[in-house]
Each structure stands twice: as C-alpha cells, then as structure tokens.
C-alpha cells in the first residue's frame, strides 16, 4: 500500500465520521461521566468538611464555599448531633457516583462496540468491493493487521481515552477557575508551566507518531510473513525449509520487537519528563506559596487551598500528556485504516444497462497490459451467440486475461479497443449483472469454508436473495444442486464422502483433490444458468475420461448458452464451433477443428503432438473419426465412478 501520510489531525475527524449513528451513546457517556466526576470530586470534599469543620474547627484552612455550606446546613453543632447524615451523604454520593460510572461505562462501551462493529463491516464490505487490481497489489497479511490490530488501537482510544480527555479538560477548567478567583499571581506562576508542558508534549507527539508508524508497519510485515508461511505450509514441508522460514520470521519478529522497544524508549522519556514537569509545578507553587505566606501576601488557609487546587490541576495536565501520546498512535492507525477506506471501490454506474446477453460477443482491436508489457495486442474476434468457442494458446499468451476482461475484473483503457455484447459495449453493462450472466470458472478455483452443498448453491442463493428480503434464510434447492453436480461429474465423488453434500470443504475441512475442486467450481457456476459460460482451463486437473463426460453433459445442460472453453487439450476443444489460437496476445488462427488441422500452423502442430500417442497405437485418422463420437461411452464400468 502506498506510503502512509500521517495526518494526526485526522483522529477526531475519523472518529467523528465513522461514529455516525452512535454518537448519542458517546454524548450520554459524557453526561454520565460529568455526574460521576462531580460525585467523585464531592466525596472527599464532604469528608474533609465533616472532619475539619464538623468534628474539628479548622476554619482557617477551609475554602470559602465550605464555610458557606456549613452555615447553610445549620451550623456545626446540629451536624455534630447528626453525624450519620455526613456518613450517609458519603454513601449516597458513592452510590450515585457508582451508578453514573456504570452508566458512562455502559454508554461508552455500547457506543464503541457499535462503532467498531460498523467499522469492521464497512471495512470488510469495502474490501469486497475494491477492484481486483487492488487485491493484486496489497498483501493479505497487511490488510488483516490493519483491520484487526489497528482497529483495536482506535477502539481502545475511543473506549478509554475519549472520556478521559473530556474529564481532564473539565477538571482543568474547574481548577483554573477556582485558582484565579483566589490569587492571580500564583495562578500565573502555575500556568507558566503549561506552555512548557505543551512544548515538549508537541515534540513527543510527533516523535511517538513517527516511531509508532514504523512499529505498526513492522507488525504488518510480520503478519504478512506469518500469513504466507501458514498458507504455503505444504511447500515449506516438502522442501524441508523450516529453518529458512524461521530465520526469515526471526528477522521480522526481532525487527518488530526492536521498533516497539524504540517507541518504548521514547515513551519512557516522555513519561519521566512529564513526571518531573508536574512535580516541579507543584514544587514551585508549594515553595512560592510558602514564601508568599511568610511575606503575608496570602494567608495560611489560602496557601493550603491553593496548593490543593494546583494539585488537582497538575495531575489532569499530566494525564493529558499521556492521552496525547495515545492520540498520536491512534492517528497512525486511523491513517492506515483510512487508506483502505479511501481506496476507490469499483465505481457505481447509474446509467449502466442490463441487456440480454444471448448475443454475439465481439472483441474489437483490444489491447491490454497489466504493467507496461502488452498482454493482448490488437485482438479481434467474434463469438457467435449460442456457439461453443474454443481458445488454445501457450502459457502466458493472454487467455486468462480475456476471461478477466469478460467479467470486468479489469476494464479496458479508453482508446485501447472495445468489447461488444451485441450492440452494447461492455463498459456500459452493469458490472454485477455482467458477472452474474457471464459465468466464469476460474483456473484455480477458491472454495469457501462451508459445506459442499452451500458452496455449489452460493451464487444461486444470492440471486434469489435479491428477489426477497434482506435477511431471510434460504432453502437450498437441493434438486438443482444435485443436477449441477451431476453435470460437473462430481455427484458420485461427493456421495462417497461420509457426510456427502454436508462435508465441509475450503480452508479447513476435507481437502479435495485439484480435480474435485475444479468440478465443484464448475457445478457452482452452472447454478447461475448464465447465458454465457467461460471455462478457463477448468478441467486441467480432471482426467480425460471425466473431462469428456462433463463436456457431453454440458452440451445438454447449457442449452442456448454461449460457451467459451479454454484448454490445452485438443480433444477438449475439437468439438467447438470455432477455435481461436492465441499466440502472444494476438489471434494466430481461427476456424473449426476440421479447417485448422488442414492448414499448417500452431493448431496443427499441437494436434500432431497430441495425436502421436494414437498414431503410435496404430489407429488411423479414419478410425478416430468413426470411433470418436462415442469415446466417452467406452469408459470401463460405464463411467459410473
């Protein structure tokens, strides 16, 4: 992903933007925290009041408002007689404070968790809709680290620090107000520390941000490394390269730990400095206040009260420093999440059309490149509606690129040709509609961690979902699943599993062979009953016998659909209505099997190579022509396996 431009000012903007809909919880939490802060501020006051003014008579050190309260409550003697009231007040305040603490925690937790839930869903949904190109460019491990670890940093900030900021600001405001009302000179001395604290906090703010960015990126790298090792575990084992993998892991793991320690060193100095600054602030007020008191500028009582106010100012300021460092870290994390969220989804196309795709498909001067090298060069061909169209081409000749273009996984750049479905240019067709109606079986199919039945029915369910409500649970049409599996010749294999169609496959679950996977993928695409079907070398891992069986069934099962078959096997292609030979991104030849084997060229060459076996076995071309038609039926045991 492109280099992060750290924008720390973005923390609050980020939180503001993505807490939409849940902000009232945060507001409630703030209100509750106001009450609970007041209660926790009052409890010690009540106790001091009781001890100093009711039980003792320390009027000289008492703040004016306490003396006022004493008068209002009927004076010292009546309270002494009813001491239980004072104790009761403490209990009542602590119950009230407790209830509001609970309420604030409840509200902030609800707000935070809802915010996180939404953010997770937004991230996931967004990632699903990002263009294929983005997925190619970004590493899975890194995205996962951002969506989990960085999100946790933001979550902690919102749940733990946000209220702290507000509480701190309130406490500072109250303390400052009280201080200025008592003595301006001392207040100014006390305030003199704020610019100082502000200055070094700013320095550390940027330092922490810089260090945390490095550490966070290192965590991303480490996650990529572990994720790839786990994904490629079979290769690691087969080559006995565990030691090499461990060395690589150690490199990233140590790098990650060291960068964090570096961040820790910065933070520890920050904290130490903070403690010294706060300590000196209190120290200055104690010493200066003592001198003022000795001089007679202030009374002893004022001195004591002032010192206590100053203390209640010093600690929140120190806490604010810590909040700032958290905010700096959070800024990095929100920046990394924002990068994902800012990546542009496949653009919505309000004017896109949804034409009937039972029509000719025409490539018109199509040129396409991933990086700089052209993969397709001025490609021209037409696939007639309802026909079967074969594509043969060498490794890397651009076959798969054609399928990607047909599904708009990539779009053609303006001026590099066009692809037509009948009279409609492909970029005018609604992307989702197109994908649903051009059923593509990928060369390396991906199965989801679900049962086989759910895997086959997955796209079909979605189609029916759209006709109904959002959340309804859908009946899988078992009959159609079985039929699709039958056409893909995988029904018998599935039935042999102990749990049959309920066998869980995918990342965790029964490991299917390459051929079984391909056939499940074929069945899955067949469920779409799409007007255009594209098979990208989808039977490479299927044995020839099964290959033939599938093709025969397809012929009947797909009816009026246009079928595009990509394969290296002549016998997979030979029955197609037209066969295109692709060479280095260009059409080398096009025609029927009969035409192509009559003229010299790549098709004929490959045909000759592949029929060598037959020739060796002494079969003539005439015999082939006669026996070919029922070749599939000649399978031993009637093809029942």
């Amino acid at each position, binding site marked *: 992903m492109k280099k992060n431009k750290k924008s720390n000012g973005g923390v609050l903007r980020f939180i503001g933007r993505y807490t939409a809909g849940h902000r009232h919880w945060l507001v409630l939490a703030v209100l509750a925290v106001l009450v609970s802060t007041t209660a926790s501020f009052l409890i010690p006051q009540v106790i001091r009041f009781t001890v100093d003014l009711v039980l003792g008579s320390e009027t000289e050190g008492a703040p004016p408002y306490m003396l006022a309260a004493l008068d209002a409550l009927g004076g010292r003697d009546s309270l002494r007689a009813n001491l239980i009231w004072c104790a009761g007040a403490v209990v009542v305040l602590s119950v009230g404070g407790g209830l509001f603490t609970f309420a604030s925690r409840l509200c902030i937790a609800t707000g935070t968790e809802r915010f996180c839930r939404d953010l997770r869903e937004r991230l996931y949904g967004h990632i699903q809709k990002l263009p294929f190109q983005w997925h190619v460019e970004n590493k899975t491990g890194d995205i996962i680290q951002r969506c989990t670890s960085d999100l946790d940093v933001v979550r902690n900030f919102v749940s733990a620090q946000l209220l702290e900021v507000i509480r701190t600001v309130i406490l500072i405001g109250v303390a400052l107000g009280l201080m200025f009302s008592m003595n301006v000179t001392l207040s100014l001395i006390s305030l003199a520390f704020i610019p100082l604290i502000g200055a070094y906090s700013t320095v550390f703010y940027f330092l922490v941000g810089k260090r945390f960015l490095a550490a966070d990126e290192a965590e991303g790298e480490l996650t990529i490394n*572990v994720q790839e090792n786990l994904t*490629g575990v079979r290769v690691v084992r087969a080559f006995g390269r565990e030691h090499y993998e*461990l060395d690589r892991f150690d490199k990233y793991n140590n790098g990650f730990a060291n960068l964090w320690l570096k961040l820790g060193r910065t933070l520890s100095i920050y904290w130490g400095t903070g403690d010294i600054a706060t300590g000196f602030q209190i120290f200055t007020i104690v010493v200066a206040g003592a001198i003022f008191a000795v001089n007679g500028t202030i009374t002893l009582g004022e001195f004591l009260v002032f010192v206590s106010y100053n203390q209640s100012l010093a600690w929140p300021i120190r806490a604010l420093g810590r909040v700032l460092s958290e905010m700096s870290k959070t800024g990095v994390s929100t920046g990394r999440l924002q990068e994902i969220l800012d990546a542009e989804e496949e653009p919505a196309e309000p004017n896109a059309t949804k034409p009937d795709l039972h029509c000719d498909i025409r490539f018109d001067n199509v040129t396409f490149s991933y990086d700089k090298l052209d993969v397709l060069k001025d490609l021209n061909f037409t696939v007639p509606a309802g026909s079967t169209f074969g594509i043969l081409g060498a490794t890397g000749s651009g076959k798969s690129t054609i399928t990607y273009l047909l599904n708009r996984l990539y779009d053609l750049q303006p001026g590099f040709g066009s692809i037509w479905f009948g009279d409609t240019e492909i970029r005018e067709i609604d992307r*989702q509609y197109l994908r649903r109606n051009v059923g593509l079986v990928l060369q390396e199919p991906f199965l989801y961690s679900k049962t086989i039945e759910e895997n086959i029915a997955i796209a079909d369910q979605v189609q029916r979902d759209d006709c109904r409500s959002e959340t309804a649970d859908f009946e899988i049409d078992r009959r159609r699943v079985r039929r699709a599996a039958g056409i893909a010749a995988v029904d018998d294999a599935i039935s042999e599993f102990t749990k049959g169609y309920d066998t869980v496959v995918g990342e965790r679950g029964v490991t299917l062979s390459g051929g079984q996977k391909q056939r499940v993928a074929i069945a899955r695409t067949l469920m779409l009953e799409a007007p255009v079907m594209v098979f990208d070398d989808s039977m490479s891992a299927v044995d020839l*016998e099964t290959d033939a069986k599938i093709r025969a069934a397809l012929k009947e099962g797909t009816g009026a659909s246009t079928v595009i078959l990509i394969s290296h096997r002549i016998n997979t292609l030979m029955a197609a209505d037209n066969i295109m030979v692709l060479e280095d991104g260009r059409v080398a030849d096009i025609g029927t099997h009969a035409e192509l084997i009559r003229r010299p060229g790549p098709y004929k060459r490959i045909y000759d190579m592949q029929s060598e076996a037959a020739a060796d076995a002494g079969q003539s071309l005439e015999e082939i022509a006669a026996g070919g038609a029922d070749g599939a039926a000649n399978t031993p045991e009637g093809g029942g396996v």
Partner: protein
Amino acid sequence: MQEQDYGAKSFSLKVWKKMLPFVRPYRGALFTAFALMLFLALVDVSIPLFLAYAVDNFVRPGTTAGMGPYIALYAGMILLQGPAVTWMARRAMHVEMNLGKDLKRATFVHLQTLGLSYYNQNAVGWILARVMSDTNHISGTVAWALTDMFWSILYVVFVFGAMLLLNWRLALLVMLVVPFVAALTAVFQSKFLTAHRAMRRANSRLTGAYNEGITGAKTSKTLVIEDRNARDFAQLTGQMYKASLRSSLLSAVFIPIIIFFSSTAVALVLQRGGVMVMENVLPFGTLSAFISYALSILEPVQQIARVLSDFIATQANIERVDGLLSQEPGIIDSPEVVEKYGTTFEPKRENWEPIKGDIEFRDVSFMYPDGDEWVLEDFNLTIPAGTTVALVGETGAGKSTLVNLACRFYEPTKGQVLIDGVDVRERSQLWLHSRLGYVLQNPHLFSGTVKENIRYGRATCCKTRIYNAARLVSADLVVAKLENGYDTDVGEGGDRLSTGEKQLVSFARAVLADPPIFVLDEATSSIDTETEQLIQNAISHILQGRTSFLVAHRLSTIRDADLVLVVKSGRIIERGTHDELMAQKGYYHGLYTAMRIDESAGAP
C-alpha cells in the same frame, strides 16, 4: 468444524504456570521494575509530607530559614522520580516486547512441526490470531498489569500499615471491605473469563473471515456474492459485538461496586470515628490523618479492581496460545533420532547418511487421522532406487496417499515404510524432506522475485545454477516475458503469474534442489502442449537415476514409467509395467484404451 473450545474452567494458576518458562528469562527485569515501583510508591507516599513540613516549619512560624536544604531535598526527590519512571517503563517494556517475541517465536516454531492435518482443521486466520494478537495480549498483561498491580498493592499495604498503627479498631473496620471484595471477585472471575473467551473466539473467527474474504476476493467477484459475504461477516461482527459488550458490562458493574465498597468503608470510619472523637476516645488529629489515608487508597483500589479483571481475562489468551503449543505434532522424531540427526532447526548434517532412494512399503496399513476407513491394507511394494513410478487413476482416487507416506507427511498406521532399508522413523524428517523435490499441481509461490522463488531458501546459490534450472524446464520462457526478468515480483502466492507460469517456476525450484527423490503431482497440467513437449525430454533426463513418483493423466508419461500403479477408490487395484497391465486386460487396459481414443480424437 469448530474451533477448539476450552471448557468452563475458572481462574486457575495451573494455566498461568504454563507461562513460567517464558517469563523466567525476564525475572531480572521484572524484579528491577518491581523494585522501582516500590521506590516510586514510597516517593508517592512521602511527597505530601513536604507540604506538611512547609506549613509547620515556614508558614506557621513565618520564617524562610532553612528553606535552602528543604528546596534541595524536595527538588532532588522530583529529579529522582523522573528517571525512576523512565527506567521502570523501560524494564516493563523490555519484558513486554521480549516476552511477546519469545511467545511468537515459540508458536511459530511449533507450527513448523505440526502435521498437515492440523492445517486442514484450522483456518489460517485462526492460527494467525493466536500467533499475533493473543501473544501480544499476554505479554502486555504480564509486563504492565503485574507492575501496576504491584504498585497498587504496595501502596494499599503501606497505607493499611499506617492505619493499623494509628488506630487498629478503625483499620479493622476498613478491612471489613476485603472479604466483600474477595467474594465479589470470586463471583465475577468465571464471568470475566467466559466473556473474554467468547471475545477471543470471535476475534479469531473475524481474522479467519478477513483472510478468507481477501484471499477469495476474485472468486467472490466473479460469483457476485460480495453482499452475501458481507452478510455472513455481519453475523461474526454481531458475535464480537455481543461478547465485547458483555465483557465491558461486567467490568462496568464490577468496578463501581468495588468503589462503592471502599467508599462505604470510609463512611463507616467517618461515622464511627466521629463518634469516637466526640466521646474524646480518639484525638481529632488521628482521625484527620486516618481519613486522609483512607481517602488515598480509593484510587489504587479502583486500579486493583481494573487490573484484576484484565488479569483474569488474560487467562483466555493463555489457554489459546497454550492450546497451540501443546498441540501434538502428528509426526515426531524420537529422542534418539534427534540425538543423531538433530532437529529441524538445528540439523546435524555431519551425521546424515547419503540417500540412495530405495523405497519399500512393508505390510503397510493406513487410515487418515481424520478418516475411518482403511486406505491401504497390508500393502507391500518395493521401489528400487532410480525407479519411476506412475500413479494412475481417477481424480480423488487417493493417488497422493502413497506419496504422502513415502515422503513421511503421514506415517503408516501399521507396518513400515523403509528408505534405503531403514524405517523412515529411524531418521529425522528433515533428513528426508531436504532430499525431496515436490512439484504440486496448485503450485504455491511466495511473495518475492522469481529468482528468490527458484532459489527458495538457498542463500548461497549462484545465478548460473538458477538460470540453468530455469532453462532446463523452460521457465526461462516465462521469465523472458516479465518486465524485470528474474527480478520481477511474483506477488502474493505468485498471483501475478498464470497457473502454467507458476508450475514452470515451481518446477525450476524443485530441479534446483537436485533431490534424489522427485514427486511430480500433475506438475504440468496447466502447461501448454508445446512447452510440455519441450520439457518432456528434460523431465526424463532429470528423473534419470532418481526415484520418482508421477501423478499424471498423460499417456506418454505413464507408458515410460518403470512401474504403473492403478488406484481406484483409495486402493491399489493393479500394478505392473505398462505392457503387463495391458496384457492383463483389466481396469488399466480399459482406462488406457478409453484415454487413447479420447486423447487422439476426443469426445463430442
């Protein structure tokens, strides 16, 4: 399949003990951090004394005499506090990061030894969450929660001590709160643990879902099921939401109750002490001091409550990491083997015998660990070194089982597999694996350049050998089409290359390893005919003198093999050379005939 669940065990030191070996190396650092905490607690307790001193010695007498030493001592104290905080934080951070690093390494190392069946049962995202996030959580708790708790407990104990000295009756009144707090904690601990377990499980599922959603993005797009995936994902975030909220709710209840208990204790002291003062049983000054102390523990008690709930919850993380670490590897080298051959990470190559490549299956019966059917029963087969064995049969018939056994990815349930006449179990896994060349049908490449992939793990390997290996299997044709040649990044999993291109590169990788035993599992299925023809000769050349297994559908390869094994429904039903099998006119004959016709002429 479900993720491993950890019973309803409540807080147990036994689980925590599992972390001892990991913490032990850092006990020095932890000790230093504790000592500094002790110092800081003392400083924190004594700082208020400076104010009292100033009042009693300067303000009340109205003199500034003796202020010089006072200022010096006070300032000195503050100046000491700063570095002490810095030092303490560094020690704690040292423990946190290194403990986390060690835990990650331990899980990673263990993962390299776990059998493939573990990977079939656990999603990558689940494992990833354990390796990364659970270990971070544990090390953070050990380093910070322990030191914070230590500070708070010290502080509270100091203050209790002072209170006992002042007035033991009132102090006992305050201590009344302890059994309540203890009882409350006992009631809450299993709830904390359960809630946190649910959270961690949800976290791991979320990670799994991200992993699947991202790696399957291409397929999801082509099937237009993005919205459906998002709906499925919303269920997981819903679980996470519930679990997190429940966990927050518990501490939202727990902490205020603790605060309530401690405030009530203070109120009791106020009432009882006030009466005592009025009855002149207690001097006013003592009550005042006592109350000051009682107030000062409110904050630390709150902190103890908070840290305690975190601490208890972390047991869930330990259970998960420990669950991974104590997962039995399916295949273990015996201590004697390790003694002689070394471990996977520290091999004793000097003791390694060279390998010839004779493979023998002796009375082998086999059942997959997660299966319930015999795949092989009393199977015997001798493969002399240099033999090419072709495995023929339908997709999914179990051709890979034999390969898995010969390569010791699995071990026979009964009987023996011998290599050069010695049971594979009498040598280390690495001894065998580093002699294998394995080309898989779905080749996996790692992020990095083509060159790095071909070289895979061989730090010292000259370019010429890499280029030669690539040329031998025509992978140089792939490279020629790439923008930066051998230095082109192939992308994650090799995704920037086509399947056929990946097969060629992974083939080159195997060739470079120059292994005595070669396994080609449909290694050329996505390679075009002309290229395949090109490398066909190379393959026969490469396989010369090596024991090799070919899993293939193509006739030419099968016919040239020294031995053909026909596999059907997980069993070997025929074996022999091509000619022998043809003469038997059995299953192979039928299969071959069908294939021949098909290959030359094709079906409709």
